[in-house]
């Protein structure tokens, strides 16, 4: 089975602070990590490889320092890791990112499964996975928290708000996975050493290394344009209503009327 995993290096948002004036994240001194749900995607891919045989290729688009994320993915058991890094990719929105990833996936050849994390903690869009599936014209199952393979079919549990649905589709397919699917393993110390000392464990591809339409890359090709970012401010204090349920409901309705909400 040939499996591709798309991963993103993100700032550890638990440790991110916001520059109140500029409305942007302060990235300095914030550790970079593999997006948590992407780590779950890597783990699932490696488990399937261990069970069914095959090969796991991890692909990330990002600046040169995103190599660290690929080293970690390699150390978790991926066979190949490819960093798509080029100035031309800078400023990509989800559309341009998905296009670039899809082209790179095509370049790697045949595949049976593609794993993505549901969403990245620095953007929370959950768009890249589905867009890649569309670009490659393959079925997609999102919010996956259970995976079974039978012959050339995949049976996945798809998380809903109040339960889950079980979805079956033919391979190749793309899955976006969520927290709870598995417990990612610790990277192997031996494979970290290999990642740095063996040749070709982590490849870096620029625009010259795979087929891309240069007009579909980076900021200029991105339909999403960010005009402003700001930190939400709190302009009034929260109020907790006291009393038993009936009293609270009465107070609430009164308030809503006062505020002309209802």
């Amino acid at each position, binding site marked *: 089975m040939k499996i591709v995993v798309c991963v993103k290096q993100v700032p550890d948002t638990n440790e991110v602070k916001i520059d109140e004036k500029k409305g942007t994240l302060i990235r300095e001194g914030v550790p970079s990590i593999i997006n948590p749900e992407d780590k779950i995607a890597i783990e699932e891919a490696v488990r399937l490889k261990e069970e069914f045989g095959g090969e796991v290729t991890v692909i990330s688009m990002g600046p040169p320092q995103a190599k*660290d994320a690929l*080293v*970690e993915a390699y*150390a978790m058991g991926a066979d190949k890791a490819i960093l798509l890094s080029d100035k031309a990719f800078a400023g990509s929105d989800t559309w341009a990112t998905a296009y670039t990833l899809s082209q790179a996936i095509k370049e790697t050849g045949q595949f049976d499964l593609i794993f993505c994390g549901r969403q990245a903690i620095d953007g929370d869009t959950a768009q890249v996975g589905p867009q890649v599936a569309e670009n490659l014209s393959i079925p997609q199952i999102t919010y996956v928290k259970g995976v079974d393979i039978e012959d050339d079919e995949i049976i996945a549990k798809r998380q809903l708000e109040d339960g889950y649905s079980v979805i079956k589709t033919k391979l190749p397919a793309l899955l976006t996975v969520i927290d709870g699917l598995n417990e990612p*393993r*610790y*990277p*192997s*110390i*031996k*494979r*970290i*050493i*290999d*990642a*740095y*000392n063996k040749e070709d464990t982590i490849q870096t591809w620029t625009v010259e290394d795979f087929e891309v339409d240069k007009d579909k890359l980076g900021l200029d090709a991105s339909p999403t344009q960010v005009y402003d970012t700001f930190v939400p401010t709190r302009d009034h204090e929260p109020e907790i209503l006291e009393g038993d349920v009936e009293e609270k409901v009465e107070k609430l309705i009164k308030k809503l009327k006062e505020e002309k909400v209802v």
Partner: protein
Amino acid sequence: MDFNISKEHEMCKKVYRDFAEKEVEPIASEIDENCEFPYENIKKMAKADMLGIPFPQKYGGAGSDTLNYVFAIEELSKSCATHGVILSAHTSLGADPIYKYGTEEQKEKYLKPLATGEKLGAFALTEPNAGTDAAGIKTTAVLKDGQYILNGNKIFITNAGAADIFIIHAMTDKSKGTRGISSFIVEADTPGFSLGKKENKMGINASDTRELIFQNCKIPAENLLGKEGMGFKIAMGTLDGGRIGIAAQALGIAQRALDETVQYTQEREQFGRPIAKFQGLQWEIAEMATKVEAARNLVYKAAKTKDEGKRFSKEAAMAKYYASEIASEVANKAVQLHGGYGYIKDYPVERLMRDAKITEIYEGTTEVQKMVIAGSLLN
């Protein structure tokens, strides 16, 4: 000094820290209380290839170096000094002598499963009447019909109840003194080899420390490590390396004691302000921090010296002597600066202080380290 900490070292260190925080920290206090050997965590460490860090990959190791191994012990010991000593005794005392003195067959049969973590190692030199004076051991090994027959007992052996492979030192020729000592590889399930009672200790309580008993224990002649009579040299050479591990354990304890103190003294208020505002405390903390940093430099330097293939006995002895003394001192101060709370088991400094003491004793007491250091300077 430039320790040349590479990206791969940084990445490994992150893994050790992450592992310590998620797997070790949550159980540290409980396994101390219940004197429970952390089997599950050792398995998890094996899966992440942490049990053979400095050995070449062809022998099942991670293919890294002593410095990386030091980082592992340091990070583990910040959360639980018992995890630190289990790794140190296994790697430096159990596996390293086979790597250094074993035949290819012995490496294949014993080093590989140790380095992959499939098996756990231990090392036994100490006897009731032979501690510092290791040359006084009474355990004997007699060669007969292609087998060595071992008789005697060893005490205070780290990992004893959990280990599969033991390095045992015994007298093959009493008349030759230290040159009559030989080293052997002994499997845990060998008939005639049994374990004595588990020691009830002051600290590193989750570490399994026991007596080993040999009663006509027969082992194959090919399990002799090195040559007959080389045992004392093997033991001393092995302990040189082991001391770097214990020094790293002491460093981890000291660093944690300092970190806890820095945090606590800024939170605890007396006389209307955080106690860290008092200069008396600030000076204590400055001294503690400086000592921890000095210890770190000695420990990393000893590891680097070993990695460079140079003689490192003196460096290892200095690192172990200094790091262990300041670990006790800093942990003791940490308890003091926590006041009554520091004496209560809810605060980690209580355990750190109990755990620190042993680093001054095993693998050569502080006095022995001084003998080694002076011996390397004086004729």
